[in-house]
């Protein structure tokens, strides 16, 4: 089985991460921001997997599992918060939701 070069995997991870970051920075809808965050998380997870397979260590896969559970928890909490936010402010636009300024 021809292994995928480690660089390819890392480049893909970096690209995914950058996409996610751009999403976080540019989206106004907080649901999309959350999704972009998921993408970023998974990108870093991918990097772990690639690194683990490159060096044959199990820790990377363990980390991925942790990220997976973390992402699940985050989505659960995040969506809950978003729903609360929508109920209270009737919007999911983060530009509008900027009351915590100094």
């Amino acid at each position, binding site marked *: 089985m021809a292994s995928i070069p480690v660089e390819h995997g890392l480049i893909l991870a970096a690209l995914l991460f950058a996409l996610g970051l751009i999403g976080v*920075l*540019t989206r106004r809808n907080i649901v999309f921001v959350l999704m972009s965050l998921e993408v970023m998380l998974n990108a870093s997870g991918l990097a772990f997997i690639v690194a683990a397979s490159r060096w044959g260590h199990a820790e990377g896969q363990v980390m991925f599992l942790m990220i997976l559970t973390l992402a699940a928890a985050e989505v659960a909490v995040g969506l809950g918060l978003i729903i609360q936010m929508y109920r209270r402010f009737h919007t999911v636009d*983060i530009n509008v*939701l*900027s*009351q*915590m*300024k*100094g």
Partner: protein
Amino acid sequence: MLDLIWLLPTFPLLGFLSLVLTSGNLPKKAVAVIGAGSIGMSFLVAAIIAAQFIASGDDYFVIEVWTWMSVGEFSPGFAFYLDGLSLVMMLIISGVGFLIHLYSTGFMLDDPSYSRFFSYMNLFVASMLMLVLADNLVLLYLGWEGVGLCSYLLIGFWYENPANGYAARKAFITTRVGDTSMAIGLFLLFTQLGTLNIQDMLHAAETQWPVGSGLAVAASLLLLGGAVGKSAQLPLQTWLPDAMAGPTPISALIHAATMVTAGVYLIARTHILFELAPNVQLLVAWIGLITLLMAGFTAMTQHDIKRILAYSTVSQIGYMFLGLGVGAYSASVFHLMTHAFFKALLFLGAGTVILSLHHEHDIFKMGGKRKQLPIAFASFLIGSLALAAFPFTSGYFSKDEILIGALEMDGPGIWLWAGGVLGAFFTGIYSFRLVFVVFFGESKAHHDEKEVAGFSMATPLIILMVLALFGGLISIPVDSVFNHGGEHEEHHISALMHGIMIVVPLLGIGVSYLFYMSKTFSIENLMSSSLAKSLHKFWFSGWGMDALYQFLFVNPFLFLARINKNDLIDSFYSGIVALTRTANGLVARAQTGQLRWYVMTVIGGVVLIVCLGVLL
């Protein structure tokens, strides 16, 4: 019986306490009995003690009731010291004080604050007795301050009028300036001599300090500061004329029996200290002379019956200072006593005039009142004769002695004498100006009022008339206090000088007669020139001293207080607060609330750290 000397201030003090504790709930009769009775008891005790003391033939008597405080070497006690000087003082204070109290029971009868009045008066007498009987300077200071406090309370007795409050505060603060000087004097004396017991201190000073030493000069100057404050001498004399704001018996009490004599007493008591500093003693004489002349000029220009008397007091106390300055201590104390008689008489007489004429003070609105107010007229006539040193009245003997004392002094003595004689001339003018304007001539207003003079008011006046006429024959037992073993010198005064001293006051009375009685000369002509007008204005204002002090002390103080109401130092801390706020405001700008801005900052930070890590 001598052991019971502590009863003297205790009776009035008890009177004060009982009047205060019942806080005006007693009937007026009871108040009068307590108020005047307590002083009467004091006088009774004083008289018995005096008789016993003189009979015993001792020079002095000391008793310590309890130790006040004892800190290291400093241990003043509540101790009373009786000798000839304090004996005379306590008799004057309790005796004349009692007469004034008795008079007040009638005078104040219509006042709603009858009880408050007598409580303050009692405290006043108690403080003054404490002052003259004190065996140490700290206890003397207690009486000294107590007297000041009571003068404040009594001058501002009719407190609704802010002007009275002003006069009261002026009296208290002006004398407090002197008191502070005296307190510093006490610190100096204690630090240098290790005791504040008067006799021990004087003895120590005599043995440790050579004549004219710097310490003696400083100490006596500081004490003099206290004395000029209480006795209303230059430069702290300005409070006394304003002190007329209180009810008239208070003026009598302040001017005759208490308060203003305190300074004279202090100097007489510590005269050994002043003799160690001859320059300061001479200064005392000059202060006395200048004050008596200035006050004499001012008294001639006043319209207010009480202010005329007030300035005459300043002037007469000036004579006492003159006497102290030239070393004629017993003459000064003698004059203090006769002055107490005739000044109490004059003030109480003035009280009768004022009360009878419904609180009229302006003498030019009176006139021709001798039929209408016979007792007041008699009081004024006798009082003014004594005040002007008419031959063989009480004032004549005492003033004569002071002037002879001045004449006997070498050096500037003759000048002091001449000044004193000139002062006597003015005294003749202003005292009889008052008599002529008020009691002779045509009645200008207040035609119908009857004299208010019940038994309680007339009796003291009659007793005081007798004393003012014949008080000069009393001899006071102060020789042992002032003559330290020295022989009593005979007076060698030429008949010419004697003649001058007799004639000059009569001349003054004559001048007064020509101007105000026979109208041979007219005041209007005299006053026509502008120089005379401005001079009159200047004298009338008390030589502009009030304005000067206003300018020098009061206004700067008020100015400083006004500009710094909000405490400059606090603005330093407010500055720190403002600085913190500003910094906070600047940093808080970064807190936009925009999520993506935060993310950008985080990423920027990460990139920066990574770059730094890579580069370094």
